[in-house]
């Protein structure tokens, strides 16, 4: 289901990331059917039998009086989760062959996720990284957190080259609560090196979603004549013929995407390829499905 508000080119014309996020999420929500699994937290969800160690404050004493059995009353509010967004701001993310660059697209996606999390009273945090951690906002559901997040996302500028190792090791020290970890990156790295870096987070009980942001020109370059390409991270240059771009390159990038998806799946992570030429709602839908699975 595509939403008319989620066209990236339209979003690019909206000034202010908060407005972009609000437009995306509300447009997306308006297109969904009403769901019992979705709503404000303090609503009754279910009863669960008391097990030793449960907090006695949650015991429904009325039920105990009628049945002499201890049941715990559970609310949606207790299903809140923690969303941690890892936004890649390496130099390669600055690429864009049309109105919306990869970093812009990643910003919209991150902002929309933050907005959605805020609507659900989820804790949300942010790590902006390239080869270093450039910005870190600890997960929180406090008032004003959304605007801090949006401000940090808006200020994320393309930096140097990508290196997952250092930032993820750094992140493991801060993540104390299990939750959702969303990695938004173009993943220009060997999948065999990316997944092992992320696996410790998975082992610690986090659900991990990899949003692989790629420009249409990166997926299927259409050069009509030989061009001199300059690597935006290393500044290396290379003269590339159209034949190669049409043939071998596409095979290699397809193999890379496939390998990354397969390894992510093998490690229990969700992988989602996001073409910046397509609407954002697919990314949001992926996030929601994973989040509901955690409730």
């Amino acid at each position, binding site marked *: 289901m595509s939403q008319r508000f989620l066209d990236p080119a339209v979003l690019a014309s909206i000034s202010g990331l908060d407005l972009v996020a609000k437009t995306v999420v509300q447009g997306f929500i308006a297109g969904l059917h009403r769901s019992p699994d979705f709503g404000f937290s303090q609503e009754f969800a279910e009863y669960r039998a008391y097990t030793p160690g449960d907090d006695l404050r949650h015991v429904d004493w009325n039920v105990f009086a009628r049945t002499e059995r201890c049941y715990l009353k559970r609310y949606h509010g207790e299903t809140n989760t923690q969303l941690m967004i890892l936004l890649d701001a390496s130099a390669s993310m600055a690429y864009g062959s049309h109105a919306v660059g*990869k970093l812009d697209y990643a910003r919209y996606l991150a902002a929309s996720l933050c907005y959605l999390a805020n609507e659900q009273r989820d804790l949300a945090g942010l790590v902006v990284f390239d080869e270093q951690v450039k910005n870190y906002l600890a997960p929180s559901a406090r008032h004003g957190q959304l605007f801090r997040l949006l401000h940090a996302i808006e200020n994320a500028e393309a930096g140097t080259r990508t290196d997952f190792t250092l930032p993820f090791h750094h992140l493991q020290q801060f993540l104390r609560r299990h939750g959702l970890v969303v990695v938004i990156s173009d993943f*220009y790295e060997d999948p065999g090196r990316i997944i092992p870096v992320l696996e410790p987070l998975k082992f610690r009980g986090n659900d991990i979603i990899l949003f692989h942001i790629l420009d249409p020109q990166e997926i299927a370059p*259409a*050069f009509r*004549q*030989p061009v*001199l390409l300059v*690597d935006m991270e*290393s500044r290396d240059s*290379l003269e590339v013929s159209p034949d190669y771009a049409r043939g071998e390159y596409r095979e290699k990038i397809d193999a890379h995407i496939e390998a990354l998806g397969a390894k992510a799946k093998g490690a229990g992570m969700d992988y989602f390829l996001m073409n910046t030429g397509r609407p954002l709602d697919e990314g949001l839908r992926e996030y929601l499905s994973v989040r509901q699975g955690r409730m």
Partner: protein
Amino acid sequence: MGFLSPWFLAGLAALSLPLWLHLLRRHRSNPLPFSSLMFFERRTQSSIKHRRLHYLLLYALRTALLALLALAFANPYFESARAPAAGGRKLTLLAVDNSFSMRQGDRLERAKRMALAAAARVAPQNRVQVLAFASQVQMVDAVQAIQPTDAQSSYAELARAVRSVAQSARMPVEVHLFSDMQRTSLPSNFADLRLPEGSTLTVHAVADRRLPNFAVENVNAPRRFVDPRKVRIQATVAGYGTDPATRRVSLLLEGKEQASKTVEVPAGGRATVEFLSLEASHGLSRCEIRTDSGDAFPDDDRYYFSVERSEPRRALVVHDDRDARGALYFRTALEAAADAAFSVDAIPAGAAAGVSPEKYAFVVLSDVGRLNAAFEEALGKYVHSGGSLLVALGPGAAPAKRVPVFDEPIGETRYTAEAPETVSWMNPAHPSMSGAVRWDGIRFYRAVKVNPGKAQVAARLSDETPLLLDKRMGEGRVLVFASTFDNISNDFPLHTAFVPFVQQTAQYLSGMEHDQQHFRVGAYLELRAGGPGAAVEVLEPGGKRALSLEESTRAKNLLLASAGFYDVRRPSGRHELVAVNPDRRESDLDLAPREALDLWRKTGEGQAAAAAEGETERKPVTLWWYVLALGAVVAAAESVIGNRHLSEARDA
């Protein structure tokens, strides 16, 4: 193969531009940023080959375009072989003389018969063009359509027309000339008879010997007269190749004989006869001098002229209220003429207010100070509608600071009794001073300096002061004399030059000077000096209108093509009878020398003989159009490929 404008080949130097652009200048690709080269590998060889091929094609097209442009401007040509003249097509020109002398006997009819016979002998592949020539050459559709004229024949004009036709036709020309071969038709400069290259001339003479001929060569009669008893008409009778003879000469008025005399004409000479009265009625009269020549060419035994008997024409002299001396001298000089054609009304300036200038032949302002405004305005209209004005300036007129009607400022006024000025320069061609009497010794003590403006200066004093100014204003004219006629500012009235000056000026101002008595056939009559205006009606000798309605309002001149009387009515109401006579050179029926005709034939024979020997003539065929068309095709191809190249660069 050659170039008609080879200096444009210098444009080939522009070929260095694409050479530098494509081969010498190092090509630099615009680097294209890309997110990562992780999956790319170097493939330079194929790309360079591709680019080189691409650029070489563009280079070739651009070089070809510049070269073709330079070639097109250089106008390349090749010489195509033209068919030999003898075996190829020719243009046969049948030139029939229809001048006045061809009216003798049946000369014209014989010429036409001979032309028809010549036309019948022309080879079928040749083109035939019939020309009728006298003083001008006309192309006619058929020999039978040729009519006799009164014009003089000119072989030079015929040769010029043949050269022009040959240049247009681009083929050998064969001229057949049918004429009485008059000696007087040959030009003074033999080079004018030059025939075009490759042409032949065949002369078909319709006269084989010189015929003796008498003709009235000229008539000298007054254009206008007042007293019939004072008229003096002189006629000259000439004999061409004649023996001494006595001839009777008659004066005819409106077709009726008025007087006749006999005259002895010497062998091949001239005799003059004089008639001393002409009892013509008032107005215009058609007159004719006729002689009973008894020769074979009676058409030239008469000579037309016209006269006008009129009352003396009135002239108005306006003088200063206190000084009439200038008017007195002017009037006396004007009335001193043998045939006083003017009567002078002299009035003081103060009495001029109600006077209408239109009824006067001309008006003289003799040192008048201040003019009545209404009279000055009337004078201005009078001049612009064709009237004439003479303004004499002296101490009375100088304070006005402006010459009336003439409308130019008056400068300083000089008075030098001790060292008077004299006339240092005068235009002898000006009608007022055309007589032989010089103005030496006339002393000018006072002269008024006037800015000439657009006026013509006819005389100057020794201090460069313009003495006589002539300016055309509208249809009329104004003369300004920068001194007076009163024998005070100068002693001009005491000199013999004064009376001729006054009389000639009066004739000039009244328009009599322009009235030429008679014209020759082929001359032009001036109808108007300015632009289009009121219609001038002209009736030909045959009584037909000579001009269409539009021509009558626009034509400035009229070709007098026929002998006889042209009846002209001008917009001012003036009626004229213009007598036109054939050129009397046509009366001399002497034949052109055979040697001259042989030489004339040879002017085009050399090339004709060469052509007859079968030498092929080369004809240049220019190729610039084809080269330019090819250049356009190359330019289009260059645009397509260049645009494709640019769009690919943009896409990349």
